[in-house]
């Protein structure tokens, strides 16, 4: 009896609880160090008036939040964030569903199309965005050149120099960047629709649009919800596109909360206010995540 027990406990590696802890620890450490710690720090900072000039933790309650909210730039950034996220994601859903429908078809040169569709996603954000910065340049923009040659415009558009076109450009580039991810997610959903269903639709006599809107899209709804969730989080929390293209300008017309938090907190040194701005959308993001995940769970694919 004693020998058996001894054999059983000889190796630590035989203990599933130890192994589970061991294998999970890198991920847990990574999350604590790079997500958990800065997150807690941001919450602490938001309730102080810390700045790069006065790095002392002095708690001031909600005073920092009140100051941030009173700032008209913050309000503009909040509205812009809303516009930016909603318009970009509506476009992403429409384009991704159409692209996914094309990607699942069998045709010559399919691999090339797939590669081109995925390109915006695999290219590093800052590099891809810098390419757009040149493409939208106020003097050398190739888009303007084409439009001039076609006789549609006589002078340059100054895409990033005017509030309306700047916002349009920022939204377009963000859409361009997220579409590949959404298209791949939706494509996975399309592939998961049983071929019997597609055949039944054909035999039942439905044409393309009826199939699309009465069968395919309702069946894809949970998957599209997941794509929207990723899209919303990427547009609301990511600052790279706006920051590289316009830095929130001209005159804060493309300022969103993520860029405003960075500009205020890091560039302007008001760490407490930057933290408060960054935290402002946290409850909104949590709510969006909860709602979308619940919707996705309620509508099962099969």
């Amino acid at each position, binding site marked *: 009896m004693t020998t058996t027990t001894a054999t059983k406990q000889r190796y630590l590696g035989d203990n599933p609880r130890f192994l589970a802890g061991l294998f999970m620890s890198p991920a847990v450490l990574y999350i604590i160090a790079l997500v958990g710690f800065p997150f807690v720090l941001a919450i602490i900072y938001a309730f102080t008036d810390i700045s790069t000039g006065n790095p002392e933790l002095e708690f001031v309650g909600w005073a920092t939040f009140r100051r941030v909210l009173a700032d008209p730039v913050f309000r503009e950034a909040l509205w812009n964030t809303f516009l930016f996220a909603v318009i970009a994601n509506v476009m992403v859903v429409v384009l991704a569903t159409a692209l996914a429908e094309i990607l699942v078809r069998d045709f010559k040169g399919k691999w090339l199309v797939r590669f081109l569709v995925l390109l915006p996603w695999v290219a590093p954000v800052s590099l891809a965005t810098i390419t757009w910065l040149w493409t939208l340049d106020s003097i050398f923009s190739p888009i303007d050149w084409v439009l001039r040659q076609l006789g549609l415009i006589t002078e340059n558009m100054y895409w990033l120099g005017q509030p309306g076109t700047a916002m349009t450009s920022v939204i377009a580039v963000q859409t361009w960047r997220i579409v590949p991810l959404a298209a791949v997610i939706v494509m996975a959903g399309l592939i998961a629709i049983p071929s*019997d269903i597609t*055949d*039944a639709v054909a*035999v039942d*006599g439905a044409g393309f649009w009826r199939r699309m809107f009465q069968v395919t899209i309702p069946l894809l709804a949970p998957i599209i919800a997941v794509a929207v969730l990723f899209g919303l989080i990427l547009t609301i929390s990511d600052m790279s596109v706006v920051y590289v293209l316009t830095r929130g300008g001209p005159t804060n017309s493309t300022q969103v909360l993520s860029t405003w938090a960075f500009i205020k907190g890091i560039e302007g040194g008001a760490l407490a206010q930057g933290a408060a701005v960054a935290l402002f959308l946290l409850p909104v993001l949590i709510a969006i995540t909860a709602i979308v995940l619940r919707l996705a769970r309620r509508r099962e694919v099969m």
Partner: protein
Amino acid sequence: MAVVEVRGLRKEFGDVTAVDGVDLQSEEGEFLVLLGPSGCGKTTLLRMIAGLEQPTEGEIMLGGEDVSGLPPRARRIAMVFQSYALYPHMTVANNIAFPLKAQGMDPEERTKKVEWAAGLFGIERLLQRRPRQLSGGERQRVALARALVREPTVFLLDEPLSNLDAKLRAAARDDLMEFQRRIGITTIYVTHDQVEAMGMGDRIAVMNHGKVRQLGTPEEVYHHPADVFVAQFLGSPPMNLLETPTYVFGFRPEQFLPEGIAESEGTRVPFTFHVNRIEYLGSERYLYGYIREYDETRVIAMLPATVTLPIAIDQDHKFSVAKDQLRFFDFDDGHKIAQQTLMR
């Protein structure tokens, strides 16, 4: 109601020939079964008739009209799929109404039709449910109702019973037969289950390697198989086949009886049967062994429970087959040939 006819139909997927020159004609209101092992091309043939696959070569006629290039919706066919393919996000009523909506029927008439179809299968009380709330048998009825609500001219079924458990399957078979007799619609039914095929089909087309090997009534294909494939595919256990230098002959296990049991001894052909093993299955006994002059080939005899004669294993027994129950096949191509005198 219409006749289905296919002429010289071929379908190639890359290098694979799924259907290899099929000619087939159904009769008005007939229940025609396509039977064959998996991969024999029966489902591809059905899908071509439905218009879900385009043939590489050949013609498809529905009710005398060439529909070869037409999409499924222009063919007035209905199809029931193996998985039933109900639309999971729609209620039963909307599932049944879907083909009518696609036709552009006005809502009032549509409701009436849906109720009529639901009544046909006794599923009126399920109309507001969703497919996932239904049992397998109920789903099948919904699938049938959806297929028939448009009053198609031809009804295609692709192994519709294979997702049901054994008990439900027998009941569903009854329902399906009863219903098909009542409306008298031309039906083409694909299955790999010979019991279903024998029990349901007016005629059976036995398929293998993309070809129809035999088309006939269940009796014809069972008792007069056109070649050795049909002989061995049908029947459980299959026909015993024995080779002579010039031809192949065979007989059904249930025709192979011990001496003294069978009547009219005069017209019977005697064999010496060495029994190796006995399987007792309640309603019958399977005897496994070989016949003395054909030691290489395993032979099975099936004795009904009414034959209580004790059979000892590892011994020779005198068995015989009625002369008119022997079937002869060409040695080279396996096709049926005329009666031969057994060379001994």
